[in-house]
């Protein structure tokens, strides 16, 4: 086995599950997450020779995963428009019809509220809330300052709270 293949297999062992959960939160469907994870690892394999080790492996893998996921979401936005619907409506439908969604009504409402966040805020919210990635690492992944990330997360959190408040009629 070649050196690159050994490294790749280590990346698969170490990160495939984390990347899957990260992607799944964005796409809200097991099948699409599965397809996308394969695309991401194909990209990782192709880009591996250019990995110079300036970035941490974890940061590099997440950066590729995040970029590929955003590209997927943008394509999905166009697909939805071609079907005369919105990507928000598509995401809601996915969450409602996901056979691998085991949460309660509050979990479902949270997923829908996150799906409605603007792209950047959703990225930050998922990385921080679900993936529990520290701001410093998020900063390397997204190329944004820690301060801006904290502000984004705060805004996203407020929007999610407002959305949940409306859903469960909790008021402010």
């Amino acid at each position: 086995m070649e050196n690159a293949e050994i490294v790749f297999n280590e990346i698969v062992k170490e990160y495939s599950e984390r990347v899957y959960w990260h992607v799944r939160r964005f796409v809200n469907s097991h099948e699409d997450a599965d397809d996308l994870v394969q695309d991401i690892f194909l990209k990782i394999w192709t880009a591996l020779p250019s990995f110079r080790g300036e970035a941490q492996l974890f940061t590099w893998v997440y950066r590729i995963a995040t970029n590929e996921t955003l590209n997927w979401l943008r394509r999905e936005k166009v697909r939805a428009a071609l079907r005369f619907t919105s990507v928000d409506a598509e995401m809601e439908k996915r969450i409602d019809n996901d056979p691998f969604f085991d949460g309660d009504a509050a979990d479902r409402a949270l997923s829908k509220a996150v799906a409605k966040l603007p792209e950047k805020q959703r990225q930050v919210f998922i990385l921080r809330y679900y993936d529990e990635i520290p701001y410093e690492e998020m900063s390397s992944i997204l190329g944004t300052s820690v301060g801006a990330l904290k502000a984004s997360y705060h805004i996203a959190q407020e929007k999610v709270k407002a959305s949940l408040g409306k859903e469960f009629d909790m008021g402010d």
Partner: protein
Amino acid sequence: MSKRTDISTPEGYFDSLQSRLADIPRREEERASAAPKGIRRLAPYAAFAASIAVAVVLGNFILRSTAVPQEDDGWTYLSYLSQALDPDGAALVDEAAWEDEEGILSEEDIINYLLADGISVEHLNYVNYEEGY
């Protein structure tokens, strides 16, 4: 509210995922060696043609970005798309309907979609920026 227990995967999914992913290098090698010899011989010419196309596109981009702004005739990629879908009649794509929470669907989004669908750069007369992995 739980963070990860609200979603699950089919039984044994991660074992199967890992073995499929670990197979990527072998599959890619097979795919590369399966490319017909003729195509491989043509690769340098294709690369040359692609570089000419990129130069043309970049030139076009530079000219467009440095030109004195003219009155906007509203002719966007959406219009091209709409024209392509329905060359004779009324536009099939209502541009106003493309608005979302973050504004109108950008040309980049549409081009990204079309490229992913196999439309060539030459057809779009557009070059996508290289991501710096």
